[in-house]
């Protein structure tokens, strides 16, 4: 009799472990798929930038530091794309966004440039890509939240680390800088 009870308990526990493990795997897989979506759009953005720089360069010849900055920032972002974690990539992308803004600020000063079709197309494409990154990021962060919640709630949290599950990182863009507490000096 005791043996039967023991076997039933062990079987129930085993089933519970299997179900939980599979659920975590599914959720983690969704996080990875969502990350792939972001990755595609970030690469698209990186591909658009050299053309933009070339186009603007043709008109704004005296602004070499701006172009250097954006080229460097792009190289850093591309490098981060190869290996870095979501957080590090987001940092590199934020630097790139800042550098890009200064390119567009420069472009503002050249009315002829604003009329060039290629420039219009490029800036439109960049805006559209940034829009897509924003939505892909939202989907990714939603999936990260689902995974992390499943991971950190009881009783899963007790044994999840035994299986090697770790909380995934959110992908936070641009507005993180705005959230930092401003340093006030007297």
């Amino acid at each position, binding site marked *: 009799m005791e043996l039967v009870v023991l076997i039933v308990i062990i079987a129930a526990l085993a089933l519970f472990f299997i179900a939980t493990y599979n659920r975590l795997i599914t959720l983690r897989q*969704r996080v990875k*798929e*969502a990350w792939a*979506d972001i990755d595609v*759009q970030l690469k698209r953005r990186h591909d658009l930038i050299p053309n933009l720089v070339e186009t603007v360069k043709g008109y704004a010849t005296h602004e070499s530091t701006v172009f250097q900055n954006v080229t460097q920032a792009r190289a850093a972002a591309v490098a981060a794309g190869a290996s870095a974690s979501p957080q590090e990539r987001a940092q590199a992308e934020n630097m790139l966004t800042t550098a890009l803004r200064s390119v567009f600020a420069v472009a503002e000063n050249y009315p002829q440039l604003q009329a060039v079709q290629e420039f219009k197309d490029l800036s*439109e494409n960049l805006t*559209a890509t940034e*829009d*897509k990154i*924003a*939505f*892909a990021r*939202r*989907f990714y962060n*939603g*999936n990260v939240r*689902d995974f992390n919640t499943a991971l950190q709630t009881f009783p899963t949290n007790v044994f999840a680390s035994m299986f090697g599950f770790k909380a995934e990182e959110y992908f936070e863009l641009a507005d993180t800088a705005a959230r930092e507490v401003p340093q006030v000096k007297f």
Partner: protein
Amino acid sequence: MSSAESPARLSIYDAAAANRWRTVVLIAVFTAIIALLGYFVGEYFAPGGGLAALPFAFALAVGSGLASYFAGDQIILAQSRAREIGPDQEKVLHDVVEALALGLGIPTPKLYVIEDSAPNAFATGRDPRHASVAVTRGLLDKMDRTELEGVIAHELSHVGNRDIRVMLLVTILVGTVALLADWMWRSFFWTRGGRRERDGGGNAIIAVIAIALALLTPIIATLIQLAVSRQREYLADASGALLTRYPSGLASALRKIAADPEPLEAANKATASLYIANPLKDAPAFFDHLFDTHPPIEERIRRLEAM
């Protein structure tokens, strides 16, 4: 943003799982209706032959079910005179659809335009990988970007939630029931005379049941279809608003659609419930709202504005 998020984050995974059940239940209900119809048609024409008619009715149901699953979206798109557009046309529409599809984590659906000035849109297909979104020229012309985003987010929610599959099956199954009932009517009409003299009272009961079924089942089937579609609209409004984080966009689009007096010519009774808002602009007064294809648009706007 926080208020849009509070009505419980219903992920498309959950909604899709719920719809899988809904699909099973609907198929079961329609199979029962078709079996009932088939049985009594058989009994009526050849007493004791009801069971023999069943395989025929089922073959019809399975056949139309499969046809609708694999080709229904193409039939609906062709009926609606929708034309597929390439990646170079309608750049704004492509950008909006691609961005929102990323936000839902679904592949970008195929895009179609209906050359009609009445603003409207619908989505169809059997799953997100085989999905199509059609919008009218009027929608592209009359909506600004946030309104277009609202409408597209609503349609993509239908895709992500697998509503499109449920609606596809229901639309065709309702058609099958109507077809069967129609055949029954015609056969009553043609064979009534000779039969009555030969048969006794037992058959009279069968005849009454058969006539009642032929009369009622198409109505019941239609009511099921409309009830399902109305319920899905609220959910798609809510998840669309959650996707754009801007319920006012869709609310304003719905207001514009409601204010537009033109009916959409390519829409008919069978496809009306697929659209984001009733394209026929008719409002049957009797039976209250039982036969509405959509929830009242004012109520949808009110709910969106309350988010």
